[in-house]
Every structure is written in structure tokens, then in C-alpha cells.
């Protein structure tokens, strides 16, 4: 079975084929055992993907988020010029690269019982590691780019 045929079957499964094409493909499935087997397999895989209903929102979720939104100041990055954001992103990326290197060196030097990197979440405090902080900052910057495109 070639990829084009499998993609056609997927379009049929997802209701993406025009009625006429869908009818023709169904007729072909009825005629060709190999195609029928591929169709049955695809349908079974798709319908086998099941998850329980999602958990509902906690009580007063919206009100709590509103209160938090009002407490926190606006993201100052959005007001910053593009060059400033690019410079900050480059600095964060360089810091992350340094952090990665340091983490690997520290991890390699330690015994096998203590494999947690020096940059990982500290077991005592449970606070975010340096790497996590860097990653948060980078994620915020990329989110701002997403926002700018809206």
C-alpha cells in the first residue's frame, strides 16, 4: 500500500473527502481485500485512542485567575524594542549553554549514587533550578513572539 492511498484513507476517516470521492473510495474498499484490511486497521487504531473525560475546572477558577491577572504587572517585554529582546534572548541562550556545560561537568564528576545535576531542582528546597529559570525566560520570550503575530 502506498502512502498516497493511506493518506486518502485517513482523509476518508476524518471526513475530509468530498462526498463523491468518499463514495468511490468506499466502493474500492468493498472490492479490494488489501485496502479493506488497511481501512479496518486504521479505523481500529483511531477508535482505540480513548481517554477519560477531562477533569472539570475547579470552583471559582475564573475569579481566581482574574484576581491574579489584576495583581501581576503587565509583561514589560512587550513594550521593549525588538533589538533589546533579541539581545536578552541571546544572553539567556548563552547562559543556558554555559549552564548545560557546567551541569554535565558537575554530573560527570559526581558518584553514581548522586546523579542529579547541580543545576537540577534542589532536593532540599524544591525550588526551580537555574536551568528551569533560564527555560522559563526563553519560553516567555518566544510566547511574546507568538503574541506579536496575533
Amino acid at each position: 500500500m502506498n502512502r498516497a492511498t493511506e493518506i486518502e484513507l485517513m482523509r476518508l476517516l476524518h471526513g475530509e473527502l468530498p462526498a463523491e470521492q468518499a463514495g468511490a473510495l468506499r466502493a474500492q474498499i468493498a472490492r479490494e481485500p488489501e485496502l479493506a484490511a488497511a481501512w479496518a486497521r486504521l479505523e481500529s487504531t483511531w477508535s482505540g485512542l480513548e481517554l477519560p473525560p477531562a477533569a472539570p475546572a475547579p470552583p471559582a477558577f475564573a475569579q481566581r485567575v482574574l484576581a491574579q491577572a489584576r495583581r501581576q504587572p503587565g509583561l514589560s517585554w512587550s513594550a521593549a524594542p525588538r533589538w533589546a529582546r533579541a539581545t536578552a534572548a541571546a544572553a539567556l541562550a548563552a547562559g543556558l549553554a554555559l549552564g548545560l556545560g557546567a551541569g554535565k561537568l558537575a554530573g560527570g564528576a559526581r558518584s553514581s549514587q548522586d546523579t542529579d545535576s547541580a543545576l537540577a531542582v534542589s532536593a532540599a528546597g524544591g525550588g526551580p533550578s537555574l536551568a528551569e529559570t533560564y527555560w522559563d525566560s526563553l519560553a516567555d520570550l518566544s510566547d511574546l513572539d507568538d503574541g506579536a503575530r496575533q
Partner: protein
Amino acid sequence: MGTDSARASATDPDWDVLARVAAGEGDAFVHLMEHHQDRLLRLCERMLGDVEEARDATQEVFLKVYQKAGAARPQGQVYTWLYRIAVNHCLNKLRRRKLVRFLRWENPAEDADVAPFDPPDTAPDPAAALESRLRWQSTRRAIAALPDNQRAVLVLARFEGLSYKQIAEVLEISEGAVESRLFRAMRRIEGAQESDASRVSRKEVRR
């Protein structure tokens, strides 16, 4: 923007609500959240595979919505815009999770992405309940094993019921790319199911 804005508002009144959010109306924000929170919670839970993390993510998404409301350009449906922010946020969280695992020298195996899972039993028949739980666990493992971009497409198609066109709008990719990612995701899942089945049959033979 005037004509576009008027046209979009005519198709989705939530753009007007979003404009009121941008003007600082708290009631409008609560209304918008209550209208969309369940679908965003569901999306984040499917993407991240963890209920608590999904709640945090949804909250963070709405905080971004509050901050970005003034910058939103009315185009299409509001939920598409919300989905875009939520999917990008979840993808960032997944990347961050992988990086932290890497820094901690943890095994990046797919199972590490599957949070403990204990949904309430709803089926009256214990055998049926067990069967459902096994199916749910297998689905979660299958989703967790997918590359992030395939995971997003599969979740939007299978669990959110979005069309190729809607997924393309949310992810800002072509419909061809949606189709291709979905195809590769399905291939991967079929492969995983086949190897699961052969593992089970090997165990049976050993007994």
C-alpha cells in the same frame, strides 16, 4: 482593521468580549474564561498528560490572554486564537520538561512523560472499568511517545474534533503539513500497538 474587525465580530461575538477585556472589564474576562475554560483545560490535559499541570497551564494561558487581549486581531473564531496560545504554551512546557530531564541525567524514554494516572471508575462493571483504564493508559503512553508537533496535531484532531483546516489555522501550518503529521503519528501509534501486542503474546507463550 475596521471592516475585518466588524466582520469577525459578526461571526464570533467573543471578539467583542475580548475587546472589553482589553478595556479592563473584569466581568468580560470571567465571561470569556467560563465560556472557554473547559475546552482549554481538556486540551492542556491531553497535551501534557497531567491534570494538575494542565490546570496550571490553563491558568497561565488565561493570564497571557488577559495581557494580550489588546493586541489580538479579530480574525476567525476566538477559540482558534485561544487554542493557538494554549498549544504553544503546552509545547513550551513539554520542551522545558525534556530539558530538565536531560539536565538531571534522567532517561528520556517516553514513559517518563506519562504522569501517574488514576481516573475515577465510572463503569458499573469492574471488568469494563478495568478494560477502559487499560485503554486509557495505552492511549496516554502512545500520545506521550509522539514528537511534540505530531502530538499537537493528533490531540486537536482526535480529542478536539478539529478539521484539517482548523488545525492548520491553530498551528499556523498548511493543511498538507497537518495531514503529513497526522499520517506519521498514526504510523507510529500503529507500530507501538503492534509491538505491545507482540510483547503480550510473548508473555503468554512463556506462561
